[in-house]
């Protein structure tokens, strides 16, 4: 009940924020929306299927670079097309990558995903002619629902139409993911997380379903990544760097991976916390490390575990 009330209050706050005349805070939340979508996917892989990826940033970067290539090289400015293209690219890349990765579990799966992430980082960094190398690629302002909105300055665009657009995409992504985890496929994935051998003996195609989760997670990562690069107007190789994947895992643990809305909360709190801590000290990474340690040791179910303690703790 309390969680539902808090959730409704949070939704209302998110809807009204741009009207409150707080452009800095409003802009600050934009990356949180992109991250939240990516984390919904990552949590399908980890919280639901039991596979922890240390290379999810690969797909976030893939989405970001898809947006960059389409808007700045191919002249495609429609954000709907950009998002669809990011999703399609993710499927094309995640298919073969996933085929290799889901043959393994636990640390071997994590290390393989990390390796693929770093391969992609190296590609982005070294293939200057294609990717712009360390300078990255520009992401031009997209057209939303066929409306160029060129009369708006950047802040007005980001805190108005784009804010609501990103929020709508996040809402849609959450609805789709909610439906998926409550579906037969969602139950099959949870059974794999709990006991893969048992699931297989009951006719669940473990490897095929793990691959499906991997591809869906990649699609969410890429869509989140495509939204993430719009406010900065830049896609750079650091999007694929392993520390970025680490941040995604951090956000997931912070919000709580055994609750559906944990990833969303984790993304929002991480971004706000990062902003506050960075303004206080240059040793913000040190402080973040300490926070992560405290969360893992004392609050293994993350912030959602504090808000919704009635659910049984994860084993």
């Amino acid at each position, binding site marked *: 009940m309390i969680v539902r009330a808090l959730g409704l209050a949070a939704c209302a706050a998110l809807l009204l924020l741009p009207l409150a005349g707080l452009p800095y805070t409003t802009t600050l939340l934009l990356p949180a929306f992109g991250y939240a979508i990516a984390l919904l996917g990552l949590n399908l892989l980890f919280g639901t299927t039991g596979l922890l990826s240390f290379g999810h940033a690969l797909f976030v970067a893939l989405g970001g670079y898809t947006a960059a290539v389409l808007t700045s090289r191919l002249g495609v400015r429609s954000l709907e097309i950009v998002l669809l293209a990011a999703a399609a690219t993710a499927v094309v890349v995640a298919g073969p990558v996933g085929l290799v990765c889901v043959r393994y579990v636990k640390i071997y799966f994590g290390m393989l995903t990390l390796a693929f992430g770093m391969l992609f980082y190296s590609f982005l960094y070294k293939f200057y002619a294609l990717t712009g190398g360390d300078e990255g690629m520009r992401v031009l302002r997209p057209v939303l629902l066929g409306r160029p909105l060129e009369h708006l300055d950047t802040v007005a665009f980001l805190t108005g139409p784009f804010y609501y657009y990103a929020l709508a995409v996040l809402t849609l992504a959450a609805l789709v993911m909610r439906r998926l985890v409550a579906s037969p496929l969602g139950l099959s994935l949870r*059974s794999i997380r*709990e006991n893969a051998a048992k699931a297989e003996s009951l*006719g669940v195609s473990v490897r095929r379903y793990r691959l499906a989760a991997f591809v869906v997670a990649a699609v969410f990562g890429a869509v989140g990544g495509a939204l993430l690069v719009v406010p900065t107007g830049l896609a750079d190789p650091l999007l694929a760097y392993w520390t970025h994947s680490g941040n995604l895992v951090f956000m997931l643990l912070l919000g709580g991976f055994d609750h559906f809305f944990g990833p969303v909360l984790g993304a929002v709190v991480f971004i706000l916390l990062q902003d506050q801590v960075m303004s206080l000290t240059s040793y913000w990474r040190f402080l973040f490390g300490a926070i992560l340690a405290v969360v893992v040791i004392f609050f293994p179910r993350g912030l959602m575990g504090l808000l919704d303690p009635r659910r049984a703790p994860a084993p």
Partner: protein
Amino acid sequence: MTLLEAADVRKFYGDTCALDGVSLRVDAGEFVSIIGPNGAGKTTLVNVLTGLAPPSSGRVSFKGVDVVGATPVRLARLGMARSFQLVTIFPGLSVADTLAVAALSRLGRSARPFTALARDAEVRAAVEEVAVLFGLADKLGRLARTLPQGDKKLLDVASAFALHPDVILMDEPTSGVSTADKTAVMETLVQAARRMGIRAIVQVEHDMDIVFGYSDRIVALHQGRVLADATPDAIRADADVVATVVGRPR
């Protein structure tokens, strides 16, 4: 009608021969027990029959189909189910969800990504049917890990039954169950099998009262070979087999 047949099956782990030319046939309507001392190859045989371990050589067929190399998933779809020696459950899933995993698999709906599981009346009915048969109907909402040990064992077996298989292979279905409860558990299993139309049961079991009380046929293994394959009465009458496998005259 022969449902399951193994012919001249050998299984090596490195240089160790776990199964040495084992042949076995299970016909419709039979309750077959596999017995033998520790290390005889009982669990290895079940693993080979259920696709968990491929044989090094030999042939295994199920309902006339060669199933050597078949995955447990394919065997489940063909109509073969198994339960494990150690309790094997989904600790973090409820009893209802555990049974639903098997029911969805049987109905071919496991991969549906957007249908609402909670609204699937056919799956719910299948779950309730099995839960009632196994006395788990009042525990459907409980997480599997919170069940008493005996109920965990029942849930493990019940989930295999929920596949509505033609043949079920049970590796020590009463292990971990108190001596006083063993007969009750077996009665539950046999009644459930009868009501669900399961055509044959194969079990590995150490408790000779259970073995001789329920089996139509007993296959005795010793050092990876079939020592005897006969009715309970014939096995009981064979002093050598009893001495080797049971260790004491009955």
